[in-house]
């Protein structure tokens, strides 16, 4: 399975943010989407998830012998600022989410099983989401794609809000899941990207650019990336 981006354009108020992004992402890999602040990482994710309409271009899911348009339900999206209905408790939200996606989920797992996968404390499950910390909200969002297992998982700056222990848990989880998914992970923290991701993609000048695998291991890795990114400064 592949995710194919075909010449995606998006501009706001006359300013071009994404200028013809082309790329093919493969299943079984974690991609790090690297870009400077304001490079358009979130915009690109929003275009893919249907949150904002792209001006032109398209995204497709390619199977062995067929290609089809990317659909809303193909995507699990974890926002950098977790957005959840605050009048529900964590438990109620997950139950609602499971009800809605009844046909997509593993019938052998119960709601309690899911909470223990993300190591969510028993007493926190029945509190209003309104009182949750940033990290707890993020965990609930992650749980959404663990439950429905959509082919494409977009994570917008996810690990920055976790403490070291939780970050490690989530990293493990992502590595375990990657076989069946395309995982794209946006960040501007270079070490995190290099550490977790199999491939690095740079969003610069509104286009996507792959970093060769050799670079990842080379000692000049940091300098090369910085040089690439600084290039974008002369816009």
């Amino acid at each position, binding site marked *: 399975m592949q995710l194919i981006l075909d010449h995606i354009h998006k501009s706001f108020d006359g300013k071009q943010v994404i200028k013809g992004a082309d790329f093919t992402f493969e299943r079984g890999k974690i991609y790090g989407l690297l870009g400077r602040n304001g490079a358009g990482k979130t915009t690109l994710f929003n275009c893919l998830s*249907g949150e904002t309409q792209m001006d032109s271009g398209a995204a497709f899911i390619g199977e062995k012998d067929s290609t089809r348009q990317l659909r809303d*339900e193909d995507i699990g*999206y974890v926002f950098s600022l977790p957005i959840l209905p605050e009048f529900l408790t964590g438990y109620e939200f997950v139950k609602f989410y499971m009800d809605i996606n009844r046909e997509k989920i593993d019938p052998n797992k119960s709601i309690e099983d899911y909470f223990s996968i993300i190591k969510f404390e028993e007493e926190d499950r029945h509190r209003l989401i309104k009182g949750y910390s940033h990290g707890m909200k993020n965990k609930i969002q992650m749980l959404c794609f663990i439950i429905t297992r959509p082919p494409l998982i977009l994570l917008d700056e996810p690990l920055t809000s976790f403490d070291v222990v939780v970050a490690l848990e989530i990293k493990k989880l992502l590595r375990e899941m990657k076989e069946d998914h395309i995982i794209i992970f946006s960040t501007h923290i270079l070490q995190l990207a290099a550490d977790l991701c199999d491939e690095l993609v740079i969003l610069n000048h509104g286009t996507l650019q792959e970093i060769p695998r050799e670079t990842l291991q080379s000692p000049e890795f940091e300098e090369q990336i910085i040089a690439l990114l600084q290039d974008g400064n002369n816009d």
Partner: protein
Amino acid sequence: MISTLRSIQRIRGSSGANRLIYYFKKLPVLGKLLKGDIYSNILLKQVFAGIVVVLKVLWGFLNKFAYLGIVIYLPIVLIHKELPLAEQYALFLHIFIILSFIVAAVSNVFILEPKRDKYICVKLMRIPAKQYMHATLLLKGLTFFIYFIPALTVFAGIFGAPLWHGVWLTLLLTAWRIVTEALNLLFFDKKGIVLVKKMSWVWSVIGLGGLLAYLPLYLGNAIVNDATGFSVPVSLVIVVLGGITAVYIGKYPNYRSAVDVVTKIDDPLLDMNRMMKEARVAEVQTKEKDFSSEELKGKAFQGKTGYAYLNAIFFSRHKRLLIQPIQRRLTIIGVLFIVGILIMLISPETSSKFTTYLLGGLPFFVFIMNYTSIGERVCKAMFYNCDLSLLRYGFYRDQAAILDNFKIRLIKLSGFNLIPAFAICLACTLLFLLSGADWGLMDAVIFWVTILCLSLFFSVHHLFMYYIFQPYSTELNMKNPFFFIVNSIVIGLSVACIGFPKASSIFTLVVLTGTIAYMVIAVTLVYKFSSRTFRVK
């Protein structure tokens, strides 16, 4: 000082111009003329800054005319037109002196006023506090004086007083306000207390002052008159005090702390927009402490699944927002019913006139039922507490999901709205029956069908508007112009209904078909378009 003043004006000019451009860009058609890069176009921005200055000066003069005209002149001529001009003038002076010399001196201080401008210039732009205060004080004093002169002379002229009265009164007021500014500053210096931030003090003075100011309107003669206002010794004392305190203000050494104390970044008085936004949000928010942990375990909702489950919890957690307005409406209906009964007992004649009017006035209920509906409030709460977050998930924007949700909500909302509708039907029926008016079974049916239909109509209307136009932004201010237009048309139609001349039965038929047609159209439109229109914008 001049250069400080110039830089302050430049900062104010730029931010004023930016604000003007920002709002200009929001205008429906004209706004499109300005491109995104307009903020960097120096020349055009200078033009905008110039416009802002002209508008500000105009506003400065007009504002004084508006104050004197609306707050003081108008009540006097409305209530005491018959009094001779001199007595009217005495009333004018009385109200003016209490409001401007006493109330405004407490509620409207300048040196210790929390203000964004201060924060920007002193905290962000690092203009020394003393220089900033000296420059702005000079400007404020001069403009205060200049803006007041024309308005006061004109109004003095209207009451037949000599024109120098206006100028003299302005001078006295300016001197007096220097004195009160100095007193506020002195109090802060000695006690460390900013009086204008003590809301209980400020509002007590406003309340009491207002009472004292307008009391003579009721009594018919002024307590303060021109003899006290213009006597030479009083005037002299005020002017001399003004001079002395001006020196104190000029030499005051601690402006830095006087500015610091009113420019805390979290001070709500600094940012009216934020205050209003927070108020709007608080109106529809849930509070965690409203629920016990048992309630949060949610045993009550266990039988439900999916959207029914979601909505059951939503409506249960927002009871306060839903029950309160219903209770208020029921109270109003109850009070009106009792008043109706009392009128019937005291004066049967008025009562029968009234009943005849009500019987023929069925169209008037279109208007009433619009305001009886709690639809708009519920939609706001649904948007802010539920849809704003869930709409970011693809599954929630799915057409089937939207329709499922819409159906559940429509039933719930209609149910809520039917409660006051029933109460209205019941109260009116009882009144009609007790009044002994000629009101048969057929009339009763017509009445009930109309009211209940109207209730349904507005339930559908509000929810339909929400799903198709989704007018709210994250701050809960509306920003979809079509929402206003369609809403105005519906309100206009309901006003037009008042003039409906035909017999009740025909009107009921119109309402009935209208409601059914509207429901069919609304549901069809929601079915067709809501997956595109029901979004966070």
